[in-house]
């Protein structure tokens, strides 16, 4: 053989991230010792990223079925859900945390590229993206570099590809320093009959490689992502970061959708994590067949690449297509039209084995099904973390005094995690494809699906794609949420709260949950305390998803998010997709009309919460630098009633405003609704408000901090015209949702950001026990709007 086969020593096994037991299992499976290339193949396929070996038993607890689930979790590259009229959506979220820590721009671009490929692999046309991001404090220049690189990377890929990045969340906490989280979501639409499968069906069918040539980039990236990050690993693993080309992906997507409209495709799979290795053995495993490929036929862009390198490369924008025999010409015609490389590299066989040859000589021969599906499974030890004893013992008596209420709200408004994310979402094209009915900055995004959102149905005689007859327009809502601090302080309830918040955000635009895709970001599972966080929060998520009838259709697990300084807060990101009956009455997150009545829907306080909603609150974190106390508990029954009430009120067109009241508390939620209307590039709208919170304060045992900044769950701030108040009352009472009239919208003012400093304008006044508080909205807006861009400008 042309390439030397290094000896398999214990060191070589260890550098491949495999244990001795795992190596012995490999020997058992093969009936012989693996060669170097085979060892590499097992190493990536048995990484956590590909095999879920540490989490599979826990993930079994997730509800995965509903009458609307057409393709369920784990079956294919993404789940597919029925949205009626013969239409369906495919969606999924996936992490690119480790690569983004090492090379933020490329790490983020390839995260977006990977998830888009998962969606069109299902036969769906990718329609919108979201993301969930976490970084260390922006006071640190390295964190700013990573933040700006990640945002620019997401923007570069999504904007060029032509997919609107319609929503997301960004938070900052020292625990993410050196361990940024980059979770990318994509949703696509298709007709039921267009669902494609990643199975190597049909013995004798040719296997095609399409897309750009394979290089040495991203070698064994999946294995890299399944280790702790150290300075050394970051330096050494820069080569494990892939390079993204959104232009190539756009062409590849259009070509694949055109090809899927023909009779040519028996199976299709993207080459993502573990590249050619994963796609060949998984497609064979799904179909119960074997697959044989010849590596010298693979288009290469690196000189002298060894079989090991070719197999484990994670070069981007490549697809594997199993073609029905006799249809080879169609593949060639369509990929030539799009000027994309293609190559026939092998055949489907009946051996059940993944066989890889180089110059005709076998370099890999492994049973495909065992490789793909029978990775070792570990039941790790879980131990309740010691820090929880201390944080659970936190009492109100120990709580810090609220000394300056004016400064406290100002500090929340200007903390990067709570401030406006315009610096981020304005770098993302969030309007391309003419479907963005509710844009970033709202509680949930709303996307229109129309006929041209679908993949082509067939090709016309001249070869042009035909999208078929008109379909009815559909509206979907989506959001991505997780309060990592809550999960850290109470893993089980924090998991429930993440799902409840997502469902609440959907309800704020009148949507009903359809399904969930989750991105489980944690530290090293070998640490029993960290494994406890994982286990308990997953239990909470599973319970809440079942309660809201939102099946989990797939997702991603990212472990080892820790460096020598420590682990991240457990951050199970929940991306939830819902459906709207009508888009006509969707309320805004901001206050609209002078005279509208402001109402707090939901119980103002959880009477069993000894900390009155202040545990783990943003107020304690931002104003008092405290991350402690048991966070407000979720209450699923109250949540459900609240969401049903919201949907009923919205369907009747009663609400002009609905805004989730969670992180930051009631005063922050109201302040955001006073400020959050974008008019155009330079202009925003503010709405003055008069609140009377004396009654709420009484309910909160007279405590001002709990009244203003407590984060009691299952609450939403709404506004409505005075003459619809009675209707609201009747509906809320009938549906069992408590409500309190807390104020009224005053004058509104449209003002340019630049002129905020000299603007005399509307105020936010709050009547509380014995005093009247007042904030100048122009000042608040200036802080809230400009915080992130000001910090990033300082960075350059």
């Amino acid at each position, binding site marked *: 053989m042309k390439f030397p086969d290094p000896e398999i020593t214990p060191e070589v096994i260890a550098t491949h991230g495999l244990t001795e037991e795992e190596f012995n299992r490999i020997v058992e499976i093969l009936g012989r010792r693996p060669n170097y290339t085979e060892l590499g193949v097992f190493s990536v396929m048995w990484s956590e990223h590909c095999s879920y070996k540490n989490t599979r038993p826990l993930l079994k607890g997730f509800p995965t079925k509903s009458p609307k689930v057409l393709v369920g979790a784990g079956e294919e590259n993404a789940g597919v859900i029925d949205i009626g009229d013969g239409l369906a959506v495919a969606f999924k979220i996936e992490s690119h945390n480790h690569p983004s820590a090492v090379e933020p721009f490329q790490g983020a671009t390839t995260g977006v590229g990977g998830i888009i490929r998962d969606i069109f692999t299902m036969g769906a046309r990718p329609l919108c993206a979201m993301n969930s991001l976490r970084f260390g404090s922006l006071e640190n220049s390295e964190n700013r570099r990573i933040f700006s690189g990640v945002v*620019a990377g997401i*923007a*570069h890929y999504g*904007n*060029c*590809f*032509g997919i609107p990045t319609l929503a997301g969340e960004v938070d900052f906490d020292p625990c993410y320093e050196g361990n940024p989280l980059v979770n990318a979501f994509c949703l696509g639409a298709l007709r039921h009959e267009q669902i494609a499968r990643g199975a190597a069906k049909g013995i004798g069918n040719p296997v095609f490689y399409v897309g750009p040539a394979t290089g040495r980039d991203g070698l064994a990236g999946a294995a890299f992502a399944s280790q702790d990050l150290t300075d050394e690993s970051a330096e050494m693993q820069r080569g494990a970061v892939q390079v993204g*080309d*959104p*232009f*190539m992906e*756009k*062409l590849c997507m259009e070509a694949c959708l055109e090809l899927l409209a023909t009779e040519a495709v028996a199976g299709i799979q993207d080459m993502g994590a573990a590249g050619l290795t994963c796609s060949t053995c998984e497609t064979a495993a799904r179909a119960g067949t074997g697959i044989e490929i010849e590596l010298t036929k693979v288009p290469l862009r690196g000189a002298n690449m060894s079989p090991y390198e070719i197999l484990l490369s994670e070069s981007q924008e490549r697809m594997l297509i199993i073609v029905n025999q006799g249809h080879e010409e169609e593949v060639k015609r369509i990929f030539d*039209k*799009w*000027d994309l490389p293609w190559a026939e590299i092998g055949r489907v066989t009946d051996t059940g084995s993944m066989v890889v040859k180089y110059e005709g000589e076998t370099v890999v021969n492994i049973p495909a099904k065992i490789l793909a599906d029978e990775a070792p499974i570990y039941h790790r030890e879980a131990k309740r973390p010691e820090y929880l004893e201390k944080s659970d013992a936190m009492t109100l008596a120990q709580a810090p005094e609220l000394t300056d209420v004016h400064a406290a709200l100002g500090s929340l408004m200007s903390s990067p995690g709570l401030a406006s994310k315009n610096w981020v*979402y*304005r*770098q*993302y*094209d*969030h*309007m*391309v*494809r*003419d479907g*963005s*009915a509710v*844009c970033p900055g709202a509680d949930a995004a709303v996307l*229109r699906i*129309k006929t*041209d959102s679908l993949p082509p149905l067939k090709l016309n005689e001249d070869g*042009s794609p035909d999208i078929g007859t008109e379909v009815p327009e559909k509206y979907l809502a989506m959001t991505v949420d997780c309060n990592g601090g809550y999960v850290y302080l109470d893993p089980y309830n924090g998991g429930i709260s993440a799902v409840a918040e997502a469902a609440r955000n959907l309800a704020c635009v009148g949507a009903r949950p359809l399904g969930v895709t989750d991105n489980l970001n944690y530290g090293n599972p070998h640490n029993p305390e960290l494994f406890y966080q994982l286990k308990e929060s997953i239990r909470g998520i599973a319970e809440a998803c079942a309660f809201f009838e939102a099946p989990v259709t797939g997702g991603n697990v990212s472990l080892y998010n820790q460096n020598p300084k420590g682990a991240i807060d457990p951050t199970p990101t929940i991306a939830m997709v819902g459906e709207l009956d009508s*888009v006509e009455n969707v309320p805004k997150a901001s206050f609209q009309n002078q005279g509208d009545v402001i109402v707090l829907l939901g119980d103002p306080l959880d009477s069993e919460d000894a900390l009155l909603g202040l545990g783990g609150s943003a107020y304690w974190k931002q104003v008092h630098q405290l991350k402690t106390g048991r966070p407000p508990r979720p209450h699923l029954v109250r949540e459900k009633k609240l969401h049903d009430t919201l949907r009923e009120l919205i369907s009747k067109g009663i609400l002009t405003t609905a805004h989730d009241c969670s992180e930051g508390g009631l005063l922050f939620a109201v302040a955001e609704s006073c400020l959050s209307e*974008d*008019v*155009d*590039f*330079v*202009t925003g709208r503010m709405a003055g408000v008069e609140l009377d919170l004396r009654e709420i304060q009484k309910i909160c045992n007279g405590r001002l901090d709990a009244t203003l900044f407590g984060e009691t769950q299952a609450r939403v701030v709404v506004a409505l015209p005075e003459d619809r108040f009675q209707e609201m009352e009747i509906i809320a009472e009938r549906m069992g949702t408590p409500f309190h009239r807390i104020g009224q919208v005053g004058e509104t003012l*449209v003002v*340019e*950001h*630049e002129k905020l400093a000299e603007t005399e304008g509307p105020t936010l006044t709050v009547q509380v026990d014995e005093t009247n508080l007042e904030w100048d909205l122009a000042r608040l807006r200036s802080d809230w709007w400009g915080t992130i861009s000001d910090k990033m400008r300082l960075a350059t």
Partner: protein
Amino acid sequence: MKVAVLQFPGSNCDQDCVHVMKNVMGVDAHLVWHKSSELGGVDAVLAPGGFSYGDYLRSGAIALFSPVMGAVREFADQGGLVLGICNGFQILCEAGLLPGAMVRNRSMEFVCAPTLIQTQSLNSPFTFKTPTDRPARIPVAHMDGCYVAEPHTLDELKKHDQILWKYVDNSGQCVPSANPNGSVENIAGVCNREGNVAGLMPHPERACEPVLGMTDGKWIFESLCAAVKGGFQRRSAA
């Protein structure tokens, strides 16, 4: 009425243009592949937004070598109406069909947000149906939208009524803060001297339906459609 929407590799607003022309304006519209050397008997051509050829050289720079651009040039030379939007505007500038050029936004960042643009001249088939009492609210989404031109070119543009749209604030003032990309004199869009070829950075096709929150983009397409039906005569300027 028949409209051709050009489709380059990397175009990504092509379907949006077809959608609006068909479903909002009610006219026939179809995609024309960049390798095609004919447009097929159309009344107007739209060069849509996107990242043609990935914009890896200079935005719009490679597209002009596509066979279809020969047909567009011929169509334009015969007085046909051609409108370039965003990347389409960049392509028409690179092809020399429009004066000036586009460079990176002064902020060095991609910007996606609604802007206000004020029509500067009604002496154009792309604007003559535009209300003048208020600016149009139309979003931008670009990285390379800073319009630049030599001083003598700017003089020519003014002399021949070729500046069609400028970014303004909500009181209609042409102030620097209203300019999303640093374009010279807040220019958002221009036309050629004959007036039949125009380009703009904002995306009117994203502002034609109430459900998307903006509708002023229709003004431009309504003008275009009315002009095709013969309702417009350009006055020679200067």
